[in-house]
């Protein structure tokens, strides 16, 4: 084989000359775009007032002033909107796995980096998708049977208590996991998807009460922003297996209180 031919085959991926711009163009950059799209959906729906707390057909809203009654039920339109809102909530969390994605991509041959990045995120999203169905139905039933205010209060309590659990600590620590995949392309993509599912599982186990609280609060942007802030704080603090229970539980309690006030007033 000639040197020319193999040089072409094995040439390292070209990178921008200016080193401090590389991070922006790394294999994980698009997760920030995904998060941006999620925020657009959440903010737009809040401004337009098209989203509300989920409520089951036989339920009342939980307070007299609420316009969304159980008698309205959940039509296909509602279902679509709530699915979109769940998608947006997961999307705004996507940058939390940027470092994991980057690591897997950078341990892969240049030609495969984009592919394995997508695979890790697809696996992660799959886990979140399954969780969204369970949590979506669960919050819908809860809000329907107990009322929106009670559901927010209950889920705030659960979210605070969850911060103190050993399961939370373990899952949070595992959110930092990374992988060096095999070099074989097909095997690499399979392993990356599986890794993504595992990563998603740990993220779900770490953050499910926050997601449920966001859902039952009608995807209120303040609640979403606060929950994302808690998740980032946990992700960037140390030790990585300690969720900073006192600080985070206070913020979660304040978030729940905000959600209660908003639900009562709106």
């Amino acid at each position: 084989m000639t040197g020319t031919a193999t040089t072409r085959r094995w040439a390292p991926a070209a990178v921008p000359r200016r080193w401090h711009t590389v991070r922006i163009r790394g294999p994980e950059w698009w997760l920030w775009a995904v998060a941006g799209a999620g925020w657009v959906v959440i903010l737009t729906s809040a401004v337009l007032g098209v989203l509300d707390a989920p409520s089951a057909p036989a339920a009342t809203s939980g307070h007299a002033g609420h316009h969304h009654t159980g008698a309205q039920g959940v039509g296909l339109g509602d279902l679509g909107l709530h699915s979109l809102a769940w998608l947006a909530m997961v999307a705004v969390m996507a940058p939390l796995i940027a470092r994991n994605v980057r690591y897997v991509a950078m341990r892969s041959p240049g030609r495969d980096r984009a592919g394995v990045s997508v695979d890790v995120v697809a696996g992660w999203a799959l886990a979140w998708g399954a969780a969204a169905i369970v949590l979506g139905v669960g919050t819908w039933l809860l809000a329907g049977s107990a009322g929106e205010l009670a559901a927010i209060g209950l889920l705030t309590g659960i979210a605070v208590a969850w911060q103190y659990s050993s399961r939370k600590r373990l899952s949070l620590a595992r959110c930092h996991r990374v992988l060096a995949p095999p070099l074989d392309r097909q095997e690499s993509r399979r392993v990356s998807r599986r890794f993504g599912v595992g990563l998603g599982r740990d993220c779900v186990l770490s953050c499910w009460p926050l997601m449920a609280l966001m859902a039952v609060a009608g995807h209120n942007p303040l609640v979403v922003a606060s929950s994302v802030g808690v998740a980032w704080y946990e992700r960037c603090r140390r030790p990585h297996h300690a969720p900073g229970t006192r600080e985070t539980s206070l913020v979660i309690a304040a978030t729940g209180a905000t959600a209660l006030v908003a639900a009562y007033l709106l």
Partner: protein
Amino acid sequence: MANVTRRAAWRTGRVNGWHDDLIWFAAAYHRMRALTPGLDDFFRIFREAQPQRFPRALVQQLVDIARQWGDPMSIGYQSQVHGTFVPSQAWPRHQGKKALWQECAHNHWFFLPWHRAYLLEFEAVVREHIRQLGGPADQWALPYWNYSDHARDRRRLGLPLPLRGETLPAGVVVPGVEARPDGKFPNPLFNPTRRARAAAEPQPGEDTEWATAAEALLRPHYANQEDTGFVSFGGGVIENPNNAALFHDSASELGQLDAQPHGSVHIRVNGTMALFEAAGLDPVFWLHHSNVDRLWETYAHDLGHGYPFEDGEGAGTAARKSWESRQFRFLRPDATTSTWIAPQVLDVTSLKYGYDTTAPPPLPATPPPPPRGSGIAPFGLDDPRPDAVASAGPLPLAGEQDVAVSAGGGDQGLGVDSFRPGARWLLRFDGIRSSGPAPTSYRVFLGLGPDEAADPEDAAHYAGLLSLFGVYEASRDDGVGSGQRRQLDVTPQVEAQAATFRPLATSVRLTPLDPSPDLADSELSIERIALEFT
């Protein structure tokens, strides 16, 4: 305080090695131990826990002892600044201020500046004890263990003599140390958990790689941008100084000095030295880090690499902002908090200390550092990302073994000339895990045939040392669980074997530096070994 000089522990003078600086260090250490409740029990439980791979019940007993160590004047407190088993919500308070523990920096470019600040804070505490004993506090400086100068005297591979015996030798008086009932005087610098071999006299032909700093001192850069194909002297750049998880857990590049000799000495001495959470309890920890700090001076001054950004390079970059803004915080005995940043610890003259010598150990002839202003010194900044071409794993690591590293497809007969001329080659180890502290480091050989002998003097095949300090901590259930990673620059080995080397079908041989411990006990494994090029 006057300028002080840190001096070699192994030096001429007292035959038994008990120079004045070590006597006063021992005197202060004795007081610091007395302020550390339950320390003897801690050592006893530690010795029990280590062979059992630290079961939860025994770790809890260690936690229950360590959570009492709230006095910054104690060795217990000072050791936990480096790492602790105690969960943060149970950290003690000192005069109303919560302890600042588990602050240590490894695996990145703050490794050296953080430890320099740590040594300065520790030295101040020792001086205060010496002052209270009426000793020469203002003239005292921490000695260093000059193991990396072993080419001049092989005895330096052994622990300095004052750290070895359980009792003081005849004629040595350490202020404040009283006789035991048997009439002998306990040696405050003795640690009962160390591996016996570390304290023994070095034998002829004994391995020396664990103590060697040449590989580190020959690195062209102090630090590298994340995910480049270089191996740097000091470790990978962290661009986000506020991400504490990066600072403490999961940055991407371990500097060569951090790995060897720093990590390999920790593993060599073993016992409490083998764990972040207990290393500072061993007096040799401080002498070891004093030498690591001295090697930084050697690299910056004697070898001409300077310090990061000292010539104004990198203005406006995220890296420079990070270097200048990351704070190192320490709680002092007077309950105030001292705060350092990396640029404050670069000029040792202004910090009022120095070393008796910073002359490098014998090094092969090397090109001078890259010129300033060339756009790359002191960093490897503009490099392309490495590309993996062959890999192996996952594999267990329980003794010597040959590992086939291959592409698994393609034309495995491709030679080095099929790749870009002047390519740099890297051997990367990902997901190194263990279920207990690693008992030894491993030698790594590249491209040895099955019948060829492994010889660390064989520069064409010997690629370096796989140092495993910190692997256990990164593998535990309460940790990330992904283990650690290492990388070795194997460009010289690939070039030396250029005529026969096949990058897509080669081999790596791993041989334990010390085959005597039961290597299977710690259940070491490697997720992937990859050969990469840029």
